[in-house]
């Protein structure tokens, strides 16, 4: 009798927890893969496609599914690789040179307005809608929105777009690290 009570009690407890868990699995279901969002948050959102994917989000999905290595993002450089490694705990690789080189100084596109013929091809190529203009009218870059992805360069039929380094202002000037102490390395 005692054994029966124990078995019944335990079965009841197990059953009710099973029901709670089953309900929770349906009620609090997470839509999509949260890892994708976390990876996407680390990527620089240049949307340049240098990684071989059609933007940062597809690359994030590929990384989250283990289909792509974490070293294919030249705009992010080593900082992005280290951050991805911290998140995913995978092997730290150096940047894959096949996909391009990391540029320390951020670049921004600039349209030579004298030569622009107003063909709108660059507008269609821009992944972040940072080019303003219309057919047969001069185009210009909204510099604050330009991610420097260089996707507007190939479609331009008159080669009037240049990538220029972003000028540092007093607002985004950075303090340099103090000289390291006499000959020692940071530990």
């Amino acid at each position, binding site marked *: 009798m005692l054994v029966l009570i124990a078995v019944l009690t335990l079965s009841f407890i197990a059953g009710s927890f099973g029901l709670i868990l089953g309900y929770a699995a349906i009620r609090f279901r997470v839509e999509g893969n949260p890892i994708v969002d976390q990876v996407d948050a680390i990527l620089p*959102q240049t949307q340049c496609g240098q990684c071989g994917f059609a933007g940062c989000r597809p690359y994030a999905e590929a990384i989250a599914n283990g289909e792509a290595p974490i070293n294919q993002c030249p705009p992010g450089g080593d900082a992005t690789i280290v951050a991805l490694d911290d998140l995913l705990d995978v092997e730290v690789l150096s940047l894959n040179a096949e996909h391009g080189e990391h540029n320390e100084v951020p670049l921004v596109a600039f349209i030579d307005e004298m030569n622009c013929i107003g063909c709108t091809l660059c507008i269609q190529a821009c*992944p972040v*809608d940072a080019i303003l203009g219309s057919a047969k009218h001069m185009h210009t870059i909204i510099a604050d929105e330009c*991610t420097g992805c260089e996707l507007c360069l190939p479609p331009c039929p008159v080669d009037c777009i240049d990538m220029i380094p972003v000028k540092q202002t*007093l607002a985004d*000037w950075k303090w340099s690290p103090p000289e390291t*102490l006499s000959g020692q390395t940071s530990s």
Partner: protein
Amino acid sequence: MSTNPSVFRFHGGLHLDGRKTESLTRPLQHASLPSELIIRVSQHIGEPNIAAVKVGDYVSRGQLLAESSELVSAPVHAPTSGTISAIEERPVAHPSGKSALCFILIPDGKDTRYEYDQGWCNTHDLQPSDLLRLIRAAGIVGLGGATFPTEAKLTRANQQKINTLIINGAECEPYITCDDILMQTHAAEVIRGVQLLQTILQPQQTLIGIEDNKPLAIKAMQQALQQSALPHTSIKSIPTLYPSGGEKQLIKLLTGHEVHSTQLSFEIGVFCQNVGTCFAITEAVDHCQPLTSRIVTVTGPGVKNPGNWVTRLGTPVSHLIELAGGYSVQQPKLVMGGPMMGLNLSSDQIPVVKATNTILVLDHLDQPTAQECVRCGQCAEVCPAQLLPQQLYWYSKTRQFELAEQYHLFDCIECGCCAAVCPSHIPLVQHYRFAKSEIWEQRRKTYNADRSRKRHEFREARLLKQKQQDEEKRRLKREALAAKAAEQQKAQAADSSATPTIDAVQAALDRVKARKKAQLVEPKNTSNLTPDQQRQIDEANSRRKNINQDKS
């Protein structure tokens, strides 16, 4: 209305050698006009200004040169009359040594004042809203060094109930005496400014904090206060201890309250303002004079005759050094501000701005080489923000910025106490500044990335929507065409059934058949046939007959 010795204490702090007497031996003087004034377009913390005058324009003293319509901003006015000869980039007081946009004003020597319309400043009508408008229009910013626009600070503070108004006359950093001499010579105007602030904020009490190494200033202020008979206002002499002039430190000293790390002072009902700002408010309200000059202390072992000068904004540092008798050392090291928190200047062509309280000329000394941290903990003892400077140092040095932030890096006021006591001479403040700017850079990058992501996602959504709309349009068109075709067919069918021609067609077909039958009767070329040929013809005829029978 008396000196109240009962003040509270803040954590840490340092007793520093004041070195204030050098610049106080001479009375306050008025600096002469230099040959050109270099007026920085934006001299406040907040949104940048936009130039309101052109090159070649003639301006009078007090005329508006640049302003911004943004909330947190303060306009800039012409410090004297003359011609704008250029608007160009000039080196300014900034740790980067970079240049910023400046007006170049060639004074004509007349110093004529710009006459504002009646109503710009009105001494009879002292409504708080008018005062706020005037304080903004006069370009007044916090003159203690932060240069936060005073009107913006007042407006935000006014949304809360302000119990205590604190007037900061501590001036705790060594060498600096501009507030001291201001209180000695213009106490009545300072007290008038306090009164105007009281009109705006309606505080229950007002405390004026002055360090006890300024007995003359305390005396002058007490006299002025007695004459003005301001209610609920008292002058508190506070012990000389660096950095008692820090906002949070002074609040702790005078009220005993601590401002939490995430709070602003007015969230606990306290509003702080510097004595120099009070004077500037009086000048604007009572004398219609925008902020175009301030008192600058020129001092240090590197100048011959230290002293205080009422200086027009935009005066190059070299001009002030000349007035102070020139350099007395071979390799002068110029600092704007005090020795603890001042900015090193790269040249003496840099102009005085609203934030300039002192030009300090030191003898160039080689910094002692930094040694390894010995974990003595003295930095933590003196830190007025109660931080752990040693931990912050390790995290900054090893670039573990997240941990540095967790240890409240952003509560560091960069007062330099920790670096001053460090037996290993580690430039601690530089490490913190580096860490802070790296974190800001990271935040900027994240902000930009978020914006790019949003724009990209919006674009994708827009393109998808467009595609769907096009698809929908095509589908509708297809459907319309199909419907039209069906209708036409239906109409045709209806047409044909309505007419009796169907019999006529049948009759015509019958006629054709009959004619074909008639043609079959006489085969040609049938003479001289071989039996084999005759058999083939017969077979063909029989097949044809069968077919015709099948058809009918």
